């Protein structure tokens, strides 16, 4: 089990960490990430991450809820058991609107929650990075960039050199 997961490098302060991330992005690496115990403003852009896909899940959930509410009321009040209420028609888009509206919100919220879990690859109980004692200090004050071995550009020698060039210290390989 000596297969490599990747290489990690630490950075002394937030600015060098931030600019190192920009250099990794510009070098064309895809399978890598930054780790810190606090949010670094602008890091998603420095990492070249595209905009979140969660709104799509929200939108699809919302539309589904709207249609489900519409069809449900039509099925119950106009098709399966036609019922006259207050002398109004069996079906109209007006009176089931609260139901359509509530289901839109409910399923949009479910879509958001589910989309967040899916796009964050959660739940994830284990990560090979935990094998490194250096990496565990990230929950203290360490700032770490990890480039994974499954990246196409990854090479044990040149990637290590690259991380040294951009100012990384305590560079070590992490086994899978």
């Amino acid at each position, binding site marked *: 089990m000596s297969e490599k997961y990747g290489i990690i490098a630490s950075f002394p302060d937030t600015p060098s960490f931030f600019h190192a991330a920009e250099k990794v992005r510009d070098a064309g690496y895809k399978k890598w990430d930054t780790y810190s115990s606090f949010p670094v403003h602008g890091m998603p852009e420095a990492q070249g991450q595209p905009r979140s896909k969660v*709104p799509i899940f929200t*939108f699809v959930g919302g539309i589904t809820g709207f249609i489900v509410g519409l069809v449900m009321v039509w099925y119950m009040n106009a098709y399966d058991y036609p019922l006259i209420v*207050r002398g*109004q028609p069996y079906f109209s888009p*007006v*009176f089931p*609107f609260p139901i359509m509206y509530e289901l839109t919100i409910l399923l949009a919220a479910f879509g958001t929650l589910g989309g967040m879990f899916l796009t964050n690859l959660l739940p994830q109980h284990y990560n090979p990075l935990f094998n490194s004692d250096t990496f565990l200090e990230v929950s203290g004050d360490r700032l770490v960039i990890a480039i994974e071995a499954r990246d196409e550009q990854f090479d044990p020698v040149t990637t290590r050199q690259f991380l040294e060039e951009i100012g990384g210290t305590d560079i070590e390989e992490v086994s899978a």
Partner: protein
Amino acid sequence: MISDTKNTQGNKVGMIALIAGIVGIVIALFGFKQGWDAGEVRPIMSWLIALGFWLSIVVGMLFLVQIWYVFHARWPTIIRRQCEHCMAALPYLLLLFLPLLAIPIFHENAGLLWKWMDGNNAMPGQITVAGDPLYDWKSPYLNIEFFAARAVGIFLVFIGIAALLRKWSFDTDTTGNVANTHRARRLSALGLFLCAIGATLASIDWFKSLEYHWFSTMYGVWFFAACMRAALASIIILCVILAAKGYLKGILKQAHRYDIGCMMLAFTVFWAYISFSQYFLIYSANIPEEVFWYNIREKNYNGDLNSWWWVSMGLIFGHFLTPFLLLLWYKTKVVMWRTVVVAVWILAFHLLDLYWNIIPGKVVTMDTTEGYLVRQFSITVYDVAALIGIGGICIFAMCRSMKKAEPIPVRDPNILTSLNYTE
């Protein structure tokens, strides 16, 4: 940073606005006079619509500024100053309201516009206002003296709060006195209540009482929602213009525009929620003295769909669905021209919403079996003239205020947070 950054192009824009305003007002008042002499109310409604349109924008900004103060919002500090400039239009709007107040005082038919003001006016069903039990019940509120007192009171509340907020904010520019911010915040807590009551009474008196038979408890909230949408759309257009051609160049950031865009989305939903709730409650209860208000906005007395049905559909799909779907997209809120297109769209439909609320009414006639006709949708020359006229005066007032004070509140305690604001 003091005098050289003050608005100099504003002089020219202000002069053009003033000239356009005076020309527009002269034409609109000519129409007003024609209507006054002929006893024809439509040209007078043009004035009411235009006044309502510009007043809703300024009152919405008054609400916005107070909400920002109360919530201690730091990011809109640079935008707040632009709202304060626009609030300078309020005293002019009071002046422009006076022609409407002249009708009950000087016209032979005091109820030419608001028909409950004259007991001799005929209502459908071969009765007069004086013989109408519903008017009898509502007369402690709907009488000319109380109406005039309320109108003056409403304007004094708006003008007074706006003047104090402006004075304290401008004073901070020179003295840097933080106490001004605290004062403004305390006033806003009270002012929001007063302005909410003021806007509610204004909408009930000026728009809703055109059909005084009607009942709706949502109407004030509808007007508040409409004001907020109009104000947010206007402020984003104004800020983008100032960032492109004027003194906000390099100051207005994407983050500011994004947040205003988010509020536009929120109030689009809010407006739809309120407007639909009003419809839904009346639809569900199905009581004749309430549903007629929606009936005349859909059908003529003989059951045929009328022009208002198309306007109603236009409001549902144009004033809610289209801006709602567009504003859901992140790009709409950050790409400048897209935000402006949506803002102009919202303003246009806000105007249509006012038409829809103000113009339809039962015009009494003895020719038809039901005794009334519905006044149909139309856009007249006087509508356009009044809009340009009153708008020109408002823009003139804004430009005049821009010359007096700093473009942004340079010594406000929150100015740095606002300048460095990021998403």
